[in-house]
């Protein structure tokens, strides 16, 4: 597509293309605009049949209200979401990073068999295993605990698979030098391989974090008690089950997506790489 074409047809094409893109961009931004507008409206204005492009009165109090509402455990669910996402991201990076390296670099008779055992689970959609997993977690007594929310999500076959692919392509000379210096597998991994894999880890880490933060079915099934709600469950409970101050619910939703919007602003490069890697299975 690097062919420069200055003909009249190309100019018409460019105009049409930009018009389509701008229109589509406006449509894509519309839900964000509504979220922001509703979060800053008073409940009365939001419910009134008259359409407002901007809040007639700016209701900044919605944000303090959601943190002071005893019925909505906003602070607690935010803390839960942060704890779950941080532990899961860190856990997946360490566990899958180690496993991927072992599979890629340590010769072992049954290595292939272990690899097939892992990739076989890739074919089983996670969502269909929620009934059996719930059965297991409930018999461990982990319902409504952070343990039950975090630990089963630490073992991601896709992440391990991708780490293995990545380490297979890691320049071996560097590791061999480290080995000759007497570092062994453990030392080589932590002192030489890890410091040179930050980019890849950032890609996998950001994607894991987003998935963990936005997860819904598992927290819904396990986090039954209010004290273990994630922010998604808190929002969903008020959306589907309880009557609620609607503009405050939008304010809460804005708070709930704020961390990820910030990530998208500052870490988009890694997220894009993460999407490319996870989407294509390491192509």
């Amino acid at each position: 597509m690097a062919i420069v074409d200055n003909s009249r047809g190309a100019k018409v094409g460019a105009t049409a293309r930009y018009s389509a893109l701008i229109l589509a961009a406006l449509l894509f931004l519309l839900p964000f605009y509504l979220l922001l507008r509703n979060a800053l409206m008073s409940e009365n204005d939001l419910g009134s049949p008259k359409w407002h492009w901007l809040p007639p009165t700016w209701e900044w109090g919605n944000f303090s209200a959601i943190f002071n509402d005893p019925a909505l455990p906003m602070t607690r669910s935010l803390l839960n979401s942060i704890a779950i996402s941080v532990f899961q991201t860190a856990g997946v990076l360490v566990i899958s990073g180690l496993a991927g390296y072992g599979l890629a670099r340590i010769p072992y008779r049954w290595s292939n068999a272990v690899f097939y055992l892992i990739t076989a689970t890739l074919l089983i959609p996670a969502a269909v295993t929620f009934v059996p997993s719930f059965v297991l977690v409930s018999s461990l007594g982990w319902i409504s605990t952070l343990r039950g929310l975090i630990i089963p999500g630490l073992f991601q076959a896709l992440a391990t698979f991708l780490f293995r692919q990545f380490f297979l392509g890691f320049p071996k000379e560097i590791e061999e030098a480290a080995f000759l210096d007497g570092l062994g597998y453990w030392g080589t991994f932590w002192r030489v391989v890890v410091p040179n894999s930050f980019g890849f880890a950032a890609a996998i880490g950001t994607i894991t974090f987003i998935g963990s933060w936005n997860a819904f079915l598992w927290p819904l099934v396990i986090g039954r008690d209010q004290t273990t709600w994630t922010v998604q469950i808190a929002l969903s409970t008020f959306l589907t089950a309880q009557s609620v101050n609607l503009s405050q619910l939008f304010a809460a939703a804005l708070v709930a997506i704020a961390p990820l919007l910030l990530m998208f602003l500052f870490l988009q490069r890694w997220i894009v790489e993460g999407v490319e890697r996870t989407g294509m299975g390491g192509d």
Partner: protein
Amino acid sequence: MTTSSLPVDPSPATAATARPSLGARLRGRQNQNQWFWVFVGPFVLGLVIFIYIPIIWSIYLSFFESYNTVTPTKFVGAGNYLDMLKDESFRSSLGTFIVFALFIVPTTFALSLLTAILVARTRVMQAFFRSVFFLPTACSYVVAALIWKMSIFAGVRSGAANAMLGLFGADSIPWLSLTKPPWYWLVIVSARLWLQVGFYMILFLAALQRISTTLYEAAAIDGASRWQAFRYITLPQLRPTSAAVLLLLLINAFQAFDEFYNILASFGTYPPYARPPLVYLYYVALGQGQDFGHGSAGAVILTLVIALAAVVFNRFFSFRGED
């Protein structure tokens, strides 16, 4: 993966002592096996406990009557399976999935390919457009459901869609409670489109950037039109990505739960329509009855259906493309 040339033992001398330390033993050439398990063991252990055991347990449960218990005693053979296959609601949930997939898979595919091509051809503000289309990926299904249900497609006059209809003097539409016509599909499908298009656009963009520009230059020299270049270069080069995207879309559609649940459930009840398989399974296994026997049988049936669909799909689109 067993072709590594790394196992150079730097200090074989330590193995000579009668009972070397753990560290020394792990360093030895003979103990690569131990090192393998130090690295891979934690993951495999977790996988066995949290994936393999539940699946096996669930298959076991599917042959028993087990309400509210995971250690059932009453063996019912294939009874649960027959019940599920006879169950009108379960079958109609599979029908719902098919309708949903027929909507969502082609539209997401076409729109993400289209936006990718438009963005790829754009030089001015390319990063801006890419970010805008990609941004909804940051949004959870719950938040999208809130915006769709309570703002865009709210059944009242203050909803955005109804406000727009009002401009033309049209009546408000109760988007979610009407089954004829089934407007709720518009709500569900547009929410998922908004959330997903950016993700797949990124995959197509990456694939477009991998296509060598020399191919297009050669085509231009041969006098190929833009359409011909697209038809005979772009599309074939995108084939592996297209196959992967289609399979991902299909599997994701099959797993649809979040937006259906959040948009349609209210006060603990779910309407009798628009119930995809997972939503139905959720209410069977984890609703009031806690019917793990039927729930497990349903999960096994769904797994088989997905596996079958993936195999058939692979037959049609061989994954080994032109790469």
